[in-house]
C-alpha cells in the first residue's frame, strides 16, 4: 500500500499509557481532597507561616490544610519545563543540557549509597571519595547517561560536611548536570558557591543552573523542617529542586497502587504550592521512588514490576499536570550485577523510556539502593541504547517503503548492494557496543566472554584510560577551600567516629 497524501495519521513513536484522563483526574481530585481535608504536617514554622498567610488553614500548630484553589493557583505559575546545563569544558562551552519537559527522556544515576562494588576487587565495601569520582568518570564516558548523582557516599571525608566533598568528587569526574544532596541549608549554600566558582560566576548560573537539589517529603504526608528550609533556599536562589517522596505501598502508603499515587501526589503538590508562594516560577520536578515494601523481607523493592508501573502511571499524571517528572530506572534488588539485575533494569528502563521520561534516576543501583555498581551502570547504558532505538519507532514514508527498489531487486534477488541499503544501514540499525552477535567460533576466539565479563572489561577500560583533569589545579584548590572551611566550622561536631 502506498502512503496516502491526505488524512494520513502517523505514529512517530511508540506510545504507552497507563492511566486515562478520567483516571488521572480521579487521582488528582482525590489528592486535592487529602490536602484540603486530611492535611499534611509541616514542621517548618516559616513554611507554615507562608501557607497560612496565603489562605491555608493551620490546626494544631503544624497541621496544614491546603484549599484546592491554592493548588490551582500554584499550578498557574509552575514552569512546565526545567532546563539544567552542565559545567563548561576547556573551551568554555557547557555542552550537556537537559530540557525536562513532557515526553523527553534523560537518564542519570542514583545517589548516596553507603556501599559500592570495588571495580578492581569486585568486593562490596563502604564507598569513598575516589569511588564517587570514578563513577562520575564512568558516567562522563557513557553516551546515554545525561546527568549524575553521587553513586556512593564519601565516607572517608568528614561525616557532617560530606556533601561538599562529594560534590567536589563529582565535579572532578564529570561535566554533566548533577542532582546533588545536601546535609542542610548551609551545605547547600556551600555547594552553590562551589558551582559559581566552577562556572566562573553567578551570572553563568543565572543563564542556566548546573545542578538541581534532591529533597523529599516524608511519607506519609509529612514535611521536615530542614527539608522545607532547603526548598525555600532553592526558590530564593534559582535552584531547581526535585520534591519527590519514597512511599512504600502497604507500609508508608496505602497498599493499592492507586492509593499510593494519590498520597504521593498530595505530598509533591504541597511542595509545589509552597514553592510558588515563595517565588512564582520556582522550578520544581516531582515524581519519586514509588514502590512497595516487600511483605516477606521488609525491603523496599527497587526492581519490582510495581515500581515500573507506578513510575509510569505517575508520569502520565505529571504530563497531564505539565510538570517535569523524576522517574526511576536502571536499578535492582539483586546483590551483585547478575541476571536478576539485568532483567530488572531492562524492564524498568524500557518502561521509563516508553512512558516518556523525564529525569530518570537510579541507574547503577543494586541491593535496593544500598550499593552502587559500576558494572550495572555500564550495562544499563547499553540497555538505554536499545530502548532509545525502540523509541524511534518505524517511520512510514515513501523513502522507507522503497517500492522502486523492491521492484528492481524482484523475487529471488538481494538488497545488500542497493543504494537504498547503503543510504539506510548506518542509521536504521542500532549498533551494540556490549551485546554479543558473533558466531560461535569468533566468540570463542575472542575469549568466550559472557556479558558480565564484557561489561566489567568496559568499566576497567574507562577507568584505566588516560584522561585530562576537567579543570586546573587553581580551580581545584578554590573548590577544595570551600570544603575545608566547612570542615573547619564543624570540627567540633565530628565525634571522632569515622565509618571507613
Amino acid at each position, binding site marked *: 500500500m502506498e502512503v496516502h497524501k491526505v488524512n494520513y495519521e502517523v505514529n512517530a513513536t511508540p506510545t504507552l499509557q497507563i492511566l486515562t484522563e478520567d483516571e488521572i483526574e480521579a487521582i488528582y481530585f482525590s489528592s486535592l481532597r487529602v490536602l484540603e481535608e486530611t492535611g499534611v504536617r509541616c514542621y517548618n514554622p516559616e513554611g507554615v507561616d507562608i501557607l497560612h498567610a496565603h489562605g491555608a488553614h493551620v490546626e494544631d500548630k503544624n497541621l496544614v490544610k491546603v484549599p484546592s484553589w491554592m493548588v490551582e493557583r500554584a499550578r498557574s505559575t509552575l514552569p512546565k519545563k526545567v532546563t539544567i546545563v552542565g559545567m563548561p569544558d576547556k573551551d568554555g562551552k557547557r555542552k550537556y543540557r537537559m530540557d525536562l519537559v513532557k515526553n523527553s527522556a534523560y537518564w542519570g544515576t542514583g545517589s548516596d549509597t*553507603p*556501599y559500592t562494588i570495588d571495580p578492581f576487587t569486585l568486593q562490596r565495601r*563502604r564507598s569513598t571519595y575516589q569511588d564517587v569520582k570514578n563513577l562520575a568518570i564512568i558516567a562522563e564516558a557513557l553516551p546515554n547517561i545525561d546527568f549524575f548523582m553521587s553513586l556512593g*557516599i564519601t*565516607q572517608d571525608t568528614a*561525616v*557532617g560536611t*560530606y556533601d561538599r566533598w562529594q560534590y567536589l568528587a563529582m565535579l572532578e569526574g564529570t561535566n554533566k548536570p548533577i542532582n546533588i544532596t545536601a*546535609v542542610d541549608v548551609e551545605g547547600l549554600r556551600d555547594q552553590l558557591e562551589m558551582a559559581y566558582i566552577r562556572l566562573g560566576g553567578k551570572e553563568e548560573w543565572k543563564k542556566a543552573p548546573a545542578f538541581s537539589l534532591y529533597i523529599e517529603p*516524608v511519607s506519609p504526608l509529612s514535611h*521536615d523542617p530542614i527539608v522545607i528550609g532547603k526548598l525555600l533556599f532553592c526558590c530564593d536562589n534559582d535552584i531547581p529542586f526535585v520534591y519527590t517522596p519514597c512511599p*512504600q505501598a*502497604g*507500609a*508508608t502508603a496505602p497498599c493499592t497502587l492507586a492509593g499510593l499515587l494519590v498520597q504521593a501526589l498530595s505530598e509533591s503538590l504541597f511542595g509545589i504550592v509552597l514553592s510558588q508562594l515563595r517565588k512564582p516560577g520556582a522550578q520544581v520536578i516531582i515524581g519519586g521512588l514509588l514502590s512497595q*515494601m516487600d*511483605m*516477606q*523481607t*521488609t525491603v523496599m523493592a527497587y526492581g519490582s514490576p510495581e515500581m515500573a508501573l507506578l513510575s509510569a502511571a505517575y508520569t502520565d499524571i505529571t504530563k497531564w499536570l505539565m510538570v517535569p517528572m523524576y522517574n526511576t530506572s536502571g536499578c535492582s534488588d539483586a546483590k551483585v550485577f547478575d541476571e536478576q539485575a539485568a532483567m530488572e533494569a531492562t524492564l524498568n528502563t524500557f518502561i521509563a523510556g516508553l512512558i516518556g521520561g523525564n529525569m530518570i534516576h537510579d541507574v547503577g543501583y543494586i541491593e535496593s539502593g*544500598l550499593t552502587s555498581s559500576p558494572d550495572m551502570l555500564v550495562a544499563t547504558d547499553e540497555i538505554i541504547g536499545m530502548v532509545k532505538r525502540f523509541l524511534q519507532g518505524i517511520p512510514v514514508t515513501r523513502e522507507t517503503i522503497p517500492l522502486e527498489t523492491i521492484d528492481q531487486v524482484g523475487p529471488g534477488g538481494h538488497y545488500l548492494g542497493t543504494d537504498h541499503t547503503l543510504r539506510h544501514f548506518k542509521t536504521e540499525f542500532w549498533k551494540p557496543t556490549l551485546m554479543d552477535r558473533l558466531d560461535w567460533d569468533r566468540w570463542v576466539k575472542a575469549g568466550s566472554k559472557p556479558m558480565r565479563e564484557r561489561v566489567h572489561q568496559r568499566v576497567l577500560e574507562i577507568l584505566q584510560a588516560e584522561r585530562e583533569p576537567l579543570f586546573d589545579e587553581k580551580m581545584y584548590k578554590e573548590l577544595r577551600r570551600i570544603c575545608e572551611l566547612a570542615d573547619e566550622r564543624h570540627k567540633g561536631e565530628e*565525634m571522632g*567516629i569515622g*565509618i571507613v
Partner: protein
Amino acid sequence: MSKILEQLATAIIEGDIDNTPKLVQKALDEGLEPLTILNDGMVMGMNEVGRRFKAGDMFVPEVLMSAEAMQAGLKVLRPLLVASGAKLLGKVIMATVQGDLHDIGKNLVGMMCEGAGFEVIDLGFDVPAERIVQAVKEHKPDIVGLSALLTTTMRQMAYTIKALEEAGLRDKVKVMVGGAPVDEEFAKKIGADGYGSNAAAGAELAKKLVGAA
C-alpha cells in the same frame, strides 16, 4: 495441650485481636496458670507464626496482626504474671536517632518485639541522645533499640551509648542497633550489645539479650 490453649494459639496465628483476650480470660476461668497460658498457648502460637513467616507462608501484615493479638492477650495476663512473680520478657525502648527521619524499619522492629512478648515504648524518630537517656531513667527498660538509616546519623548511636555511660545507665540496659547502613562491625566498634539486619532478627536478638533464647 488442652483445647483452650490450642484455641489460643490459633487465635494468635490468625491475628484475632478480639478473641485472644477473651480466650485468655476463659483459660484463667478454667483455672490454668498465667505462665502456662502464656508459654503453652500464646508463645506456641507466636512460634508457629515465626516459623511460617520464615518459610514464606505468612507475610508482614499478618505477622503484625498476630503481634497485636499477642499484646491484647498480654494486657489481661501481664498484671497476673507480675503478681505471680513470673519473669517477663521485659521492656524495649525503640528510637530512630537524632537527625534521622527513617522510621518504618524501627516501627517494624518494635512490632516484632511486641509479637515476641516484649512491652515496647516507641520514642519516634529524630530522637536526641538526651531524650533517650531521660526515657531510660523513666521507664527502666531492659533493652534500648536504636535505628539509623544514614551514614551521617550512625554516629548518633555511638553518641547515645556514650550518653548512657555518662548517666551511669549503660550497665542497666542492653543496646541493640540496626538500619540499612549499619553492620556488625560498626555495632562492635561503638560498643553496642548486638546488631540485627531485619525486624525478625531484631526480635530474636532482643530475646537473646534478656537471656530468653
